[in-house]
């Protein structure tokens, strides 16, 4: 028998250099090569797009500056703040709406009228309503994540199989057992779906809100680069936003996988 350590290392190696990953790398390399060529030879539409080689030199410069990283942290701070509050309010509200007909009856119509309004349409009202710009941006981010999580939790809680509820009652569960041992774990997958989707929306929202009203952040950085005519920096900003969103949703997925071990088996 092989030692478990070497076999797990081998597994990891196989995972990293799997065919799927290699295909991904090949695709990225080809895209970058195409972009470089297109910019260098001024293909139609690419005339003003800086080639990756120049972007890369700006990346080095940006990475060295503290202001660039402050933009990262301020965007991340806003996203986490708005997102966490959306979960704190949204998850209990979704569960209450699913379990109490009165609360559902009272909140659902308002909820359904407000839900289709895009978070960005809230920006002007939000700026008027909240005392600081920072709070109004946080509020818009909150809305982006809030509706998604409520709808997912509500849907998840409503679709719990009646057999589990019946079995739990037969086994002698009281109300708190029913909630913590049955309803909550049954809804957990929906909570993480709602979080993953909501996280994507918060990044869309934060960037746009910073472009409109911000004084810092990755959206502000991108917009400022455009206003200042620094084209390579626009692309650095865009890629930063993409990476930031990817890091955030990977975190959610990781926590989700850890919290719902039984789902890995499907």
């Amino acid at each position, binding site marked *: 028998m092989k030692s478990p350590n070497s076999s797990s290392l081998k597994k990891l190696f196989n995972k990293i250099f799997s065919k799927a990953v290699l295909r991904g790398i090949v695709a990225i390399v080809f895209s970058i090569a195409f972009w470089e060529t297109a910019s260098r030879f001024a293909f139609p539409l690419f005339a003003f797009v800086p080639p990756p080689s120049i972007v890369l030199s700006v990346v080095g410069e940006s990475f060295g500056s503290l202001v660039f990283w402050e933009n990262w942290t301020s965007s991340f701070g806003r996203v986490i703040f708005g997102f966490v509050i959306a979960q704190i309010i949204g998850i209990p509200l979704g569960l209450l709406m699913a379990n109490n007909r009165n609360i559902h009856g009272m909140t659902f119509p308002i909820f359904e009228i407000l839900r289709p309004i895009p978070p960005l349409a809230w920006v002007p009202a939000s700026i008027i309503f909240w005392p600081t710009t920072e709070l109004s941006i946080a509020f818009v981010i909150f809305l982006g994540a809030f509706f998604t999580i409520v709808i997912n939790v509500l849907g998840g809680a409503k679709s719990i199989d009646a057999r589990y509820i019946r079995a739990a009652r*037969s086994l002698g*569960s009281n109300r708190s057992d029913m909630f913590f041992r049955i309803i909550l*774990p049954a809804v957990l997958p929906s909570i993480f779906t709602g979080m993953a989707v909501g996280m994507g929306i918060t990044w869309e929202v934060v960037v746009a809100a910073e472009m409109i009203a911000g004084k810092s952040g990755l959206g502000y950085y991108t917009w400022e680069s455009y206003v200042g005519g620094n084209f390579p920096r626009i692309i650095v900003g865009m890629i930063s936003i993409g990476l930031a969103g990817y890091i955030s949703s990977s975190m959610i997925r990781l926590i989700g996988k850890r919290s719902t071990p039984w789902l890995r088996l499907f």
Partner: protein
Amino acid sequence: MTDKSSTKKFAGTNSAAPSGDGRIEISNVTKIYDPGGVNVCAVSDCSFDIEAGEFCVVVGPSGCGKTTLLNAIAGFHSISDGEIRLDGDVLCSATKMAEPGADRMVVFQNGALFPWCTVLKNVMYGPSVQGRMTSHQARAAALDILRELGLSEIGDAYPNEISSGMRRRVEIARALINDPKALLLDEPFRALDALTKGVAQEFLLQAYDRMKKTVFFITHDLEEALFLGTKVVIMTTRPCRVRKMITVDLPRPRTYKVRSSKRYLELKREVFDAVHEEALKAFKAGERELA
């Protein structure tokens, strides 16, 4: 093995648990569903008794109201008239719905193990939420019962990791650890293939021979009814009423070999005759509804 089969309880079960004789009396039970003003009579004036520790199998055509009866005993449905008693106490009547409880454990048609709990946690669930054991004791009791039923190897697996036959066995273990007065099983082996079904049935019989609980078992499968039951209650087409009761006097413990005995074949013929007539009636009633 033999000395254990004489003891009534599993090693792990707590003697303070709700235990009793488990005699169920079903008297003149009627259930009328009323969806949108159309009265559908699911059960009509149905009466029969299940003796303490008896393995009672209820068979009848689909949709004849067998499950309605089980749900009334379990406390999931109300009844419109009549009453059901457990050890002399009224469980439910026209005015009172039974409260679900650990003295009547239900095993569901499609299985209801909690997918988010491991097998061990599922089995521990009852004793730990009822507060009659600490989680440490519940764990020990669950390990005991899993070992006795030959399931200890899968304790750490999630329900989705084990076969459907195994899941049914775990579910029976989860019910039995509560030391219930009665075990209510609603076509528990329906979705299993023939081979797995045979093994699962023998598993249930072994558990029954050890614990001698009252069993209320619903099935479509007449062979299953005869193989398992002490008493087979044949129901009429909707509305559900008792058509015939057959005492299955095959010796216990039973193994698959009993299925080729002469007495078994005689009983089989008797049951098939009774059920065939009902099935024809149900079929004709269906034709009338279509016409």
